[in-house]
Every structure is written in C-alpha cells, then in structure tokens.
C-alpha cells in the first residue's frame, strides 16, 4: 500500500477507473482440466490476472520423514513468472511467494479431507502468468477447482477475493492500480457452504467500521465467485458425460468413486446455507 489517497480512483458517478461499481467483481472465467499431466488443473482469468493451477496427489511424499502419520500434507507452491509483472521478477522464490504459499496451503487444508490419505502429499502448484492484483485470491479460486478436478475429497469449496479501500471507500476485488494507489487491501478466503474464513490478511489503515464493511463485502464477493466455480465444475462434468470415450480423471485415479463424488454432493446438499 504505497497509496497516499490523493489519486482519484472513483469518479463522480461512483464508478471506478475500470468502470466497475464499488461492490463489483472483475470479469472472471475458469477453465478446468487445462493440463494433461496433472491430476487436476484449472486456468483462471480474473481481470488481467492469468493463473494456472495444477494438483498432483495424493501421492508419496519426499523426503519421507516429512509425512504426517494421520493425514495428507497439502503443499502449495505459488510462483510468479518472471514476465508476469511490469519489472522482471527474479526467478528465485521471494519471501513474499513463500509466505503466500504457506497461507494458501493452510486455507486449502481447512477443507480437504486429509485424514483419508495418511502419509501422502497433495501438491498444489500455482503459476501466475500475468499479475493484476489479487493474485493470491485468484490462485486459491483456481486451486480449489483443480483439487475438485483431481477428485480430492473436500468438505467444501474455498472461494476467495479481496476487499480494500480506495479513496477511503470500501471496494471489492481491487486491481493492480487500486492496489497500488488505494489505502488498504484485505484478501480473504471463504467457503460459503461452511461459513468458514480460512485466510485473512490486511495491510493499510482501516477503521473498525471499514474493516467490518470490508469483511462483509469480501464474503459477499466470495459467494458470487463460488457460483462461478460450481458452474465451471458442472460444465466440466457435463462435457465428460457428453464424451463417453473419455474416462473422467477422478475415476481413473485410485480414489474410490464414493469419495470422488463427495464433492458435488456436499455442495448440492449444503447449497441452501449459502
């Protein structure tokens, strides 16, 4: 947050620089199953963000002494391509990338039924190809559906979006310019069917009221994104059914069918809650 609040980010009609309303998400699209080798994968475009997520696992963990005796270890690797930002990023992982990887792993761990796969690893790779603000949230959205695509059983689907402050007003889903010139950003991860916040960060200067308003707005935004995630997953499964030759990955894997199906079922049942 380098913003000093002096840049005009909202016009007289209450529209943001990119034309959005304060509580409006950026255009968001999700493609599932984009990478053949991965057990599950997704590409997300959110504003100008382009991010690819791939899931491998449950699989053997190396080195073995890191394995957990009672559950799977979820490992996240969030990485930005050197050319994804205005200045070239160094290819070595930064402290920022390491911190984000850690909190994304914590967030996803909160919904995955890790106890079903003791001593294994579930590896989630997120590669930011173009960054436009909110990459950790977009990565999490993609990773959630990639996990579902991989047939990993989950209690719910994590959705994610940030709220923040531009010209002292609370706004949803800041993009790059707003992130830099605004006065606060609060990324959040939320599983609508579970009413659970599994990631929360903030920097900037928020009053108590602004914080609470941001929290409510981000939760609302996450619910909207959750619908898009569900539709993308449904679309994928519809496509599969239409194409009888192609075996869905969830079945091809050693994951028993009952578990693989658990994801859509759980969502369907709990939807009224959202």
């Amino acid at each position, binding site marked *: *947050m*380098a913003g000093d609040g002096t840049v005009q980010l909202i016009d007289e009609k209450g529209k943001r620089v990119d034309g959005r309303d304060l509580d409006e998400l950026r255009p968001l699209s999700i493609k599932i199953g984009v990478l053949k080798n991965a057990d599950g994968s997704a590409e997300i475009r959110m504003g100008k963000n382009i991010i690819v997520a791939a899931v491998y696992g449950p699989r053997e963990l190396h080195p073995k002494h890191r394995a957990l005796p009672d559950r799977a270890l979820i490992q996240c690797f969030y990485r930005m391509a050197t050319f994804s930002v205005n200045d070239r990023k160094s290819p070595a992982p930064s*402290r*920022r990338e*390491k*911190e984000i990887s*850690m*909190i994304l792993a*914590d967030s996803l*761990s*909160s919904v995955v039924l890790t106890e079903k796969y003791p001593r294994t690893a579930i590896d989630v790779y997120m590669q930011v190809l173009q960054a436009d603000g909110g990459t950790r949230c977009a990565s999490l959205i993609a990773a959630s559906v990639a996990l579902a695509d991989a047939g990993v059983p989950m209690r719910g689907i994590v959705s994610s979006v940030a709220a923040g402050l531009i010209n002292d007003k609370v706004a949803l889903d800041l993009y790059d310019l707003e992130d830099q010139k605004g006065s606060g950003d*609060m990324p959040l991860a*939320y*599983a609508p069917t*579970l*009413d*659970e*916040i*599994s*990631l*929360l*960060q*903030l*920097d*900037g*200067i*928020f*009053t*108590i009221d602004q*914080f*609470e308003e941001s*929290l*409510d707005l981000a*939760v609302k935004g996450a619910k909207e994104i959750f619908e898009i995630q569900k539709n993308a997953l449904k679309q994928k499964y519809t496509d599969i059914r239409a194409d009888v030759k192609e075996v869905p990955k969830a079945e091809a894997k050693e994951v028993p069918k009952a578990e693989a199906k658990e994801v859509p079922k759980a969502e369907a049942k709990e939807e009224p809650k959202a």
Partner: protein
Amino acid sequence: MGDNYVISEIEKDHILFLLEQNKRSDNRELNQIREVNIETHYVGKAEGSAVVTLGDTKLIVGVKAILGSPFPDTPNTGVITISAELSPLASPYFEIGPPSNAAIELARVTDRAIRESHCIDLSKLCIVPEKSVWILFIDFYILNDAGNLFDAATLGAIAALATAKIPKTKVGEDGVVEVLEEKEPLKIDHYPVSVTSYKVGKFNIFDANFKEERVSNSRLTFGFDEDDHIVSVQKGRQGVYTPEEIKKILRESLLVSKTLRKELMKALSKK
C-alpha cells in the same frame, strides 16, 4: 513454529479441560497477557535496540541505519527492511539454516504493522532524492520461544525504532553526503502494537504460551495504531473462523492492544 514438536494428547486434553472452566494452565484469564518487560539501549553498536520479554519469551531487536540508494520508483523515501532469525538457540524446534517459513512470516507480519502504521515518515529518511537515503535494517533474534513471538516482535521493533538515534548528515556542494558524529532521534509518528489470539477448541486466548500455541487450530493477529485503526491482519494455521467470530475477536484484541501499548509507552518514557 517448530514443526517437529508433537504435543501429547493428554496435555492437549488438559488445556482444553481447563479452558472449559475458563482457566488456563498458568492461571491467567483468557485475555490476560503475561508479564512484559522492554529494555531499550541494550546494544550500543546498533542505532537502536530492545530486548523484550513476554513471560518466558525473549527476543532482541536491533536497528542499523546504512546509507544507500532509494528504489527507483520511490526516489524520495528511505527504506525499512525487517528480518527475523529463529535461531536454534531459542527452541529445540528451530533448525540451523536459511530462514524458515515461520521466520519469513514473523518478519513479514511485523513489517506490515510497522510499515502500514506509518510510524516513521520514510520521506524524512531521504537525504538526496534518487541518490542517497537511510536504509533501516530491523533485525530480530529470538532468544527463547515460549509463545507469541508476533506480539513480542512488534513491541521490540517499535521500541528499538523509538529509541534509535541516527547520525546527522551534511550534503557537500558536490552532492557527496557526509555522515556527522552528532546523532538525532528518529521521529515516531505512531505506535503500532500487534495482538495475537489463538483459537483452542472454541476458545480464543491471548498471548498464548508455547503449549497453547501447539494445541491451537488457528492464529489471528491484528496490528493497531493508537487511534484504534487496524493496520495489519494475519490469519495463520489451518483452522477457520466465521465472519462474526472475527468481529468479536477484533474487539477483544483492541482491548488487549491498550494494555500492550501502555507497557510500551511506560518503557519508552524511561528512555
């Protein structure tokens, strides 16, 4: 932190059993912090320094000011950079080697509270725009980890900054910066403190000790300035919160921040 520490089920049950009765293993209230001590001017070779103890948790923070170049995109502002070392001196669960994820998170979360509170006007660290600025290195060394490093670290950082003295400088006609003998204090505009709660079962407790941390599901850290602004948040660990729970913890954390800031100001008044 210490990823290879496994607490026994018995200890865990005991901690939870006490919490059900609104008690903690060290007889504190759920929102009661341990004894705080902040000793500044500990290391004479640093521009500023502080040793913080929070119960048995102990860490040292040093501030060094080095002349350097500003970042090209902020030519008129100085630089703050924070690092933390979780030395194996401090815990049987820390390991020798490059900074662990836990050390990175500790440094970055403390950085956020310090930076976002604007406690130091970085433009005042600029000596010659585009050419020469002060770089403040704020380095932590954990000496004993008995829980709640986050809040101790922020106390230490602000105490070390508030008692730091930076050399005066003179810019010659040729633009060469001369560092003078005389030193002047850094001006501190805000006094952020960090308040961390841990969720154990359904209870949220403050200033957790090491074992409480280990049995907890989630961690939630708020940074507050003295005007009750929230300047930083970090949720940690694999547990979750409802939105309402977060709002409730926020208000409790704000209260705790008053106590911590009182301790901070008390220590600084002695400087």
